[in-house]
């Protein structure tokens, strides 16, 4: 789009359509194009080259909520950077989200990265409902050399977390990764079950160091509702955007950051062990610009 072209109405319309196609949503797409148009009229931006530069900077800026840690430093939170005081171990990280978004796979891949950094990892099989959920996580535990705490199917997820936390404390584990069942944000009973997990952990003297909302990058405008309702029952600290290796651009990220102030922390770029990375805003923005 940014080839040899004039910065005219046709260009702005095409740009707006590209943003809509990337799931930025009609309001944000319209805003950006309007802003660009007015800066062009005022003479501040002349021509498509300058427009591209401005968009790159502006979109990257919109992905950085105030006060969020820079993504590169984000993989290991302060709680697990050496030296780790015994009292702050284990760092408990939760993985929440709607059905099929990629939570269990994210847990497995982050366990792999942490192991690679020399951290000890325990997985909690907090999905006690879905068929073969525990078996799926068990395979990731084996693949990554992580310990796992798992109860029978149908049990209380809070009880799994309770046991896993105790086990991690007793073993001096650095990080406890909690896999949870997929749940739709509009299901009151499931959201109440989610809230209970944090209460039970607090009762045990623990607290969540990280709470990730795991979100499929192809999700449409409903993603905002998901984030807002999950945040009512969980102290979310960041978003993991999965399946960015598809054709979906994940443009809902902009609305999410704007409306929740949550940072995008990791990107899932495939199904393999290595295919999760700290979120790279510049690369993300480049993939969105047509």
């Amino acid at each position: 789009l940014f080839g040899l072209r004039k910065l005219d109405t046709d260009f702005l319309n095409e740009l707006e359509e590209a943003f809509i196609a990337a799931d930025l949503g009609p309001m944000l797409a319209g805003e950006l194009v309007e802003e660009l148009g007015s800066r062009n009229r005022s003479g501040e931006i002349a021509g498509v080259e300058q427009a591209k530069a401005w968009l790159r900077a502006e979109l990257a800026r919109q992905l950085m909520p105030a006060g969020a840690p820079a993504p590169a430093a984000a993989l290991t939170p302060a709680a697990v950077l050496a030296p780790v005081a015994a009292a702050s171990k284990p760092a408990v990280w939760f993985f929440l989200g709607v059905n099929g978004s990629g939570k269990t796979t994210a847990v497995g891949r982050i366990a792999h990265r942490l192991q690679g950094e020399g951290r000890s990892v325990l997985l909690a099989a907090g999905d006690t409902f879905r068929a073969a959920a525990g078996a799926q996580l068990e395979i990731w535990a084996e693949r990554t050399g992580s310990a796992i705490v798992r109860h029978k199917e149908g049990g209380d997820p809070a009880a799994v977390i309770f046991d896993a936390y105790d086990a991690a404390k007793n073993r001096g584990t650095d990080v406890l990764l909690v896999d949870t069942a997929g749940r739709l944000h509009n299901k009151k009973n499931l959201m109440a079950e989610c809230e209970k997990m944090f209460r039970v952990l607090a009762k045990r003297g623990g607290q969540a160091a990280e709470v990730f909302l795991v979100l499929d990058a192809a999700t449409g405008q409903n993603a905002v509702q998901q984030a807002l309702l999950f945040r009512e029952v969980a102290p979310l600290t960041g978003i993991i955007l999965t399946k960015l290796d598809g054709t979906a651009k994940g443009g809902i990220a902009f609305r999410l950051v704007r409306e929740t102030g949550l940072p995008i922390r990791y990107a899932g770029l495939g199904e393999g062990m290595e295919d999760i990375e700290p979120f790279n805003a510049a690369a993300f923005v480049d993939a969105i610009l047509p």
Partner: protein
Amino acid sequence: GLSDKLQQVFARLRGSGRRISEQDVNESLRAIRVALLEADVALEAVKALTQAIREQAVGEKVLESVRPGDMVVKIVQDEIARLLGASDTAIRYRTEGPTVILMCGLQGSGKTTTCAKLARLLASRDGRKPLLAAADLKRPAAIAQLQTLGRELGFPVYSEAVADPVRVCTGAVKHARAEGRDLVILDTAGRLHVDEELMREIKAVHAALSPDETLLVLDAMTGQDAVRSARAFHETLPLDGLILTKLDSDTRGGAALSLRHATGRPIKFAGVGEQLDKLEEFHPDRMAGRILG
């Protein structure tokens, strides 16, 4: 929802005391466009819809009408109903030998769960004797997942310790014949339509099995990517129908509007919950109401 928004737009115009102009219709079209995009209707479908609405609305009828808001709302509803098409939930059963249904779709869309749900629905609705085939050889515990669901429903699940899904699928059909099962539902691995190797793989399964129905399982919460992926699968496969899952979420599900137009195929069933009895025949009129909000 959209109907209320449109009524507001027209109430304002009427309140201004002058006649409704073409310019005013354009303003209502902008409101329609934003509302449909917010509901995740594909951009190409929004453009086609607003064009069709403009042509009808700019006609004499609406401009002269006492209640232009109502007329535009009716035009929008009719156009959406037209895009969704008539209900079509039939399965093309074979008269001899087991009917084969191939399920495909992106990662996490709900294929494995829907295989089991569909077996249950077709057993109950059409008196079928289903066999489930565990042909996802990639995902950890995918076979165990389908086996658990099959056990729960009392349906046999076929699997083979091999690396080639074609072998599992052909083995399943052979096994179904031998056991008197008249329906085989093939669960496959989630795949991206841009993954050439995996699209070749499912094309090979399709070629070897000549399924009677090929159904794309798509997450109703998908945004603009829905029509892209559906079109890509349809160009590789050809599809006979679609199943929209997770409609028990509060997503407006606008993706549904463009699917028939993009593939020429109907949405046959809707997943409306995690439990195995939560699969319904798809109702186009109910979907239209949901998208309009």
